[in-house]
């Protein structure tokens, strides 16, 4: 069975092409349980595509992905069941606008996990308290600020009690003054030991919270390492060039 050292995510030689355009070429990486991996790189570098391959919102063109011992691309793997173990937070929040905040959060537990409504509700309220929005349970998403919407989206993903959380540029669509409140929730999550893969432009977050930072460009992993080492002594010229622009 899974030991503490066995990676919970194993990506091997994954490639992704859209037509002739190769977005990911020969990507291999492991993520350990409880690890926070931060993926950085210029836009169009394939980092979001890589993240979306991890729960098969994008179908890789080749390679292998193993999540918690289950090979994603094998025919016998039930991808719907694997996705339930992977929470995902999107750049555009993607809250369900026809449902109240509480129902956004309980939808998955009730429909997918088949929890009784009362149990799902208790869990949702607990999570709303955790992200500081218990007073918004009855509100519709349209009435929330961007920062509030993203915190609800995090609560919605957590309600499924996932083993891994994927963040796809969670603060990129936010006004600057709201970035902090979302990052604070993510920091707490990391501290509680959640396995996280975070695609972001927030270098401060990467440095402070990341266990490992991975720099991508043109569909390849250029360099990876501990945040302090990567930010202070990047080994590759391209990493240096990118960091000099964003830091």
């Amino acid at each position, binding site marked *: 069975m899974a030991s503490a050292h066995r990676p919970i995510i194993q990506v091997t030689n994954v490639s992704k092409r859209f037509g002739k355009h190769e977005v990911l070429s020969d990507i291999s990486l492991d993520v350990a349980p409880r690890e926070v991996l931060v993926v950085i790189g210029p836009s169009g570098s394939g980092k979001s595509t890589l993240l979306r391959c991890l*729960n098969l*919102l994008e179908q890789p063109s080749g390679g292998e992905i193993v999540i918690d011992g289950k090979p994603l691309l094998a025919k016998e793997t039930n991808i*719907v*069941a694997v*996705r*339930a*173990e*992977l*929470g*995902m937070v*999107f750049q*555009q929040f*993607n*809250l*369900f*606008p*026809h449902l109240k905040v509480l129902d956004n959060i309980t*939808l*998955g537990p009730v*429909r*997918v*996990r088949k929890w009784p409504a009362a149990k799902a509700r208790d869990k949702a309220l607990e999570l709303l308290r955790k992200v500081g929005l218990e007073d918004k349970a009855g509100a519709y998403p349209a009435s929330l600020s961007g920062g509030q919407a993203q915190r609800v*989206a995090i609560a*919605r*993903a957590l*309600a*499924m009690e996932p083993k891994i959380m994927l963040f796809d540029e969670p603060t990129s669509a936010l006004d600057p003054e709201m970035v902090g409140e979302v990052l604070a929730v993510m920091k707490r999550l990391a501290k509680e030991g959640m396995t996280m893969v975070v695609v972001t432009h927030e270098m401060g977050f990467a440095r402070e919270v990341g266990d490992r930072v991975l720099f991508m460009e043109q569909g390849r992993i250029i360099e990876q390492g501990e945040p302090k080492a990567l930010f202070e002594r990047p080994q590759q010229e391209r990493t240096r060039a990118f960091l000099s622009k964003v830091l």
Partner: protein
Amino acid sequence: MDFRFDIVRDYLPLLLRGTVYTVCISLASIALGSILGLGVGLGKMSRYWFLRWPMHAYINFFRGTPLLVQIYMVHFGLIPLLYGKTDAIAAAVTALSLNAAAYTAEIYRAGIQSIDKGQTEAALSIGMTPWQAMRSVVLPQAVRRMIPAFGNEFIVLLKDSSLVALIAAPEIMYWSSAMKNQYIRVWEPYLTAALIYFILTYTLNKLLVLLERKVA
């Protein structure tokens, strides 16, 4: 122009019975056509060609040929083929439903495709099946946007149901034609029929506006 109210009064019971038939045939066709149309529309959006192509052909056929031709084919061809003999009401509901399905299929497709892809992705990411995502997340949002288009289609269908008089389904036009033939008068039967249709479409329109206001 003298208008003979007495012959309208004579035919009123029959016209009212015809109105009941018109309403029932239309409602049944709207219901069946909308359900069938969802299947056709989803089929046309399928990633499997063996679902997509037939649905594509279905929509083209029913939108590209006259409703009257379809009614005749169902009445004189399809229903006798299935049951041995024909039946005007069954043929009317079948033909109108098949026709409405083609139009509502396109309404469903447009409505569903107007919902952001991120909605489906978010639903999938919390472990829903594609069908659950469609049912709980995409359709409830899409249906709101479809209401005006559905309203148009329902009103068109209600008016087009007058064509089934030609296969002797005893609805409004059937009885007004009978009235015309009996008295050799034009204005009394057709103005009366027009008024009844107008009241029906006007009421339907008002109901749809109310519904739209309630859901939106």
